């Protein structure tokens, strides 16, 4: 039976970074599903100046992508940094995504939410996945687009991202960590 619920696509930071390097952010619009971004994810992508931070911030603004507010991000903003110690950020993106999954699951009717992650995040993160949510990798999404005829080549997008990442020479290997 056909499911007529709204489908919303929510990319995590990793997929947007990959697509930004491939100059292919707009492929997320190909299925015609509304795209939303979680506030903590957007913050993680744009808090520092990186090769993609400006492009992603402008892309979000240009396409009027709705930013999903979370208590996690609100809490993060409220807790001040202690002295010179940076505020704790580890796992906050995932907490915010889990919170978003829960919130969407409680909506009536609940939309179908497709969360886009990189492979390693799918392998690691143990989200409690509500029935209305799907976890999908960037690679699976690109293959899907190719099979639907919306993208010439999934492999080309991945290859372009890697090539452009290699060409970016500003970042150096960090020194041995922790320092001896």
């Amino acid at each position, binding site marked *: 039976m056909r499911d007529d619920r709204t489908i919303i696509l929510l990319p995590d930071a990793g997929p947007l970074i990959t697509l930004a390097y491939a100059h292919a952010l707009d492929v997320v619009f190909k299925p015609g599903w509304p795209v939303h971004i979680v506030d903590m994810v957007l913050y993680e992508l744009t808090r*520092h100046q990186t090769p993609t931070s400006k492009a992603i911030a402008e892309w979000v603004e240009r396409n009027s992508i709705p930013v999903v507010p979370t208590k996690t991000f609100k809490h993060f903003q409220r807790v001040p940094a202690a002295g010179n110690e940076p505020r704790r950020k580890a796992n906050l993106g995932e907490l915010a995504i889990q919170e978003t999954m829960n919130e969407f699951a409680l909506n009536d009717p609940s939309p179908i939410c497709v969360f886009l992650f990189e492979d390693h995040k799918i392998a690691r993160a143990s989200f409690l996945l509500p029935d209305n949510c799907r976890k999908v990798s960037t690679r*699976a999404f690109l293959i899907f687009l190719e099979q639907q005829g919306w993208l010439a080549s999934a492999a080309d997008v991945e290859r372009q991202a890697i090539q452009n990442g290699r060409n970016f020479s500003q970042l150096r290997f960090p020194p041995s960590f922790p320092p001896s």
Partner: protein
Amino acid sequence: MADTVNFTGAVERELLKRAKIIAAKSDTSVNALFNAELRYLVETFEAAEASGNQNFKTLLDFSLGRVDDQQAMATLGIDGPEDLFLLMTQAHLPMPRLPDSTTQSMVDSLRSLAK
């Protein structure tokens, strides 16, 4: 010329197909490409190890799925997924990959939504 030995290994069908195309375009063999990449990996690993730098090993462990992204970033002293992505590309290491069967089931799930 260095001594060579034959050995048996397994490679993804699609990856081998792509390697054959690159070999043909580069007027070389898959064997030569494999040797060049393996040499790069071995020499980079050994050079890093000799200088007491564990960064390449950490990236290799991440690529092979032996440590997760958060462990890798903590060990490397970096702060975000973009830095990790850039280091992986510079190290010529692939990002970790889920098994093809897992990827295919996600593709199938998306196709069922698009019907």
